[in-house]
């Protein structure tokens, strides 16, 4: 990678700071409508979810459609720590993420032996089981939901999102990340080259689950109430659409997908049926005409702005 600090990362950092400052400024000046503020925080939550799902689906080439299950575990765990034990927010978020990662590890251990469709169905089944467990748990309110005080602010959501994306990005460009990519490209070849494919698949799955749990924790501490129904297959599908739309294997693509889909959903929130019909058509058309997604496996970069941009550098917009 060459130098640690280059033009690209400076530009990215400045961009991130600028986005934060503009939103924080308008919140402080009280000119941001509450609906917009809600959407912005949801964008942050969905960016964490889509980049972490991309790590599993796009980078490692496994096909998980039970991401909402991990989100639910993180959300409920964080809510339990905050409400039942009066724990601090940071601890709650961490607990949610860790328990979710543990669940990912335990689920990944047996199911990651499965391939393609079968893995997809197993993860879907897992997601539904998690939801039904919470539905039947009176301790966390069952079907009527679990109220949690709102403690997440824009600052929390935004910086947790940035940290998550940076960690996932660094993972992808590390030795482990390259191993994961080799599994995606050809699992048998990777195995022959001496890569412990099971280990890396479980590693990617666990990290993905960790961040999904974190996103769930943020969600729980922002939305006042969490209900099992929120974490149904529909939520997993929403996250999947973001990843696929942006391009399986492209981190910036996932970010783009999350931003576009959250804004579109917010704009169509008055017509929920239309939102889903449009999403579904978009997905079908996309798969037929551009199955790689908007960015494919490429990363969006600002390199065209500089003279000699770094290849594969990631940036956020």
């Amino acid at each position: 990678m060459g130098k640690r600090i280059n033009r690209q990362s400076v530009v990215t950092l400045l961009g991130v700071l600028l986005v934060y400052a503009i939103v924080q400024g308008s919140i402080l000046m009280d000119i941001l409508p509450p609906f917009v503020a809600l959407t912005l925080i949801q964008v942050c939550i969905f960016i964490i979810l889509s980049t972490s799902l991309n790590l599993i689906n796009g980078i490692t080439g496994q096909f998980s459609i039970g991401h909402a299950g991990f989100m639910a575990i993180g959300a409920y765990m964080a809510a339990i720590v905050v409400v039942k034990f009066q724990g601090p927010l940071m601890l709650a978020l961490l607990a949610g993420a860790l328990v979710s990662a543990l669940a990912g590890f335990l689920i990944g251990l047996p199911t990651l032996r499965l391939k393609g469709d079968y893995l997809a169905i197993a993860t879907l089944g897992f997601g539904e089981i998690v939801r039904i467990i919470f539905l039947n748990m009176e301790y966390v309110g069952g079907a009527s939901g679990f109220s949690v005080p709102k403690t997440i602010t824009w600052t929390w959501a935004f910086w947790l999102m940035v940290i998550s994306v940076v960690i996932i990005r660094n993972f992808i460009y590390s030795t482990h990340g390259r191993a994961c990519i080799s599994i995606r490209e050809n699992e048998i070849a990777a195995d022959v080259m001496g890569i412990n494919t099971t280990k890396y698949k479980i590693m990617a799955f666990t990290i993905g689950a960790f961040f999904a749990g974190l996103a769930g924790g943020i969600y729980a501490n922002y939305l006042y109430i969490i209900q099992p129904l929120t974490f149904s297959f529909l939520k997993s599908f929403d996250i999947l659409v973001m990843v696929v739309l942006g391009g399986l294997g492209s981190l910036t693509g996932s970010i783009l997908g999350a931003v576009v889909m959250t804004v579109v959903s917010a704009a169509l929130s008055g017509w929920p049926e239309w939102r889903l019909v449009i999403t579904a058509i978009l997905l079908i058309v996309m798969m037929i005409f551009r199955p790689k997604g908007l960015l494919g496996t490429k990363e969006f970069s600002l390199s065209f702005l500089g003279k000699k941009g770094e290849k594969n550098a990631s940036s956020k917009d």
Partner: protein
Amino acid sequence: MGNVTEQVLQQIVNGLSLGSIYALVALGYTMVYGIIKLINFAHGDVMMVGAYAGWFATTTLHLSFIPALLIAMVVSAILGVLIERIAYKPLRNATRIASLITAIGVSFFLEYGGMLVVSPQMRTYPPVFPDTIWNVGGIIIKYGDIVMILTSIILMILLHVIVKYSKIGKAMRAVSFDNEAALLMGINVNNTISATFAIGSALAAAAGVLMGVYFNTINPLMGIIPGLKAFVAAVLGGIGIIPGAMVGGFFLGLTESFVSGLGASTWRDAVAFLILILVLIIKPSGLFGKNIREKV
């Protein structure tokens, strides 16, 4: 002791009724998977469309059960073929993941498109059967139970005859065995795949009408959970294997009614998915499946 036996027998009756629905839907899943290796996520929603077609036929057109069933089957068969031609055919050579995502997309399109067309509210199925209830030694058998089990058995026999003895059935088996070799032998692969979708969707529609009649209400999202469970049934029996789907469907129906009978009805769905995960981990090829070694 007599009471326990009665309860067990009662749950068997309920389980067989429920299982016949799962079996009918599972047959479509398994046939489509057998022929193009695609999990047709939209299959449960095709069943929903069939249920609505049957509802329309009985309420607006005032038809009796059998004509309504036939109309629903025809409507769904056409829908199934259209879905295949529009959404799945362009992706036949694409990655499995791409077609799986498309199938999920089609499923959501039917569910929420359906909501736009028929509104999300529940519809009540008119009583097409007499309310006759037989009490055989304490076991309650409804008229609907008999019709449901009989209809599905007749349809399964019909399917068996078609697949085993007709020309199109032979073509189906050939395409599912080796797509390219079948093409070289002069089989019209496209038409065969369309026929598979048509038959599978018609069976799903029959299941949809039976479900509407049995449970009285239908809504645009009614296909999701039975669809997923029918998929569990198909995997349980060994996906791609027709008798496997029937056995898997009845097994799942029986398991569910016993779980409900034990007073844990809210856990019913979780048990179905647990069975799925266990089957996938222990014997992914299903009860009737053979292990096929993967070649590099």
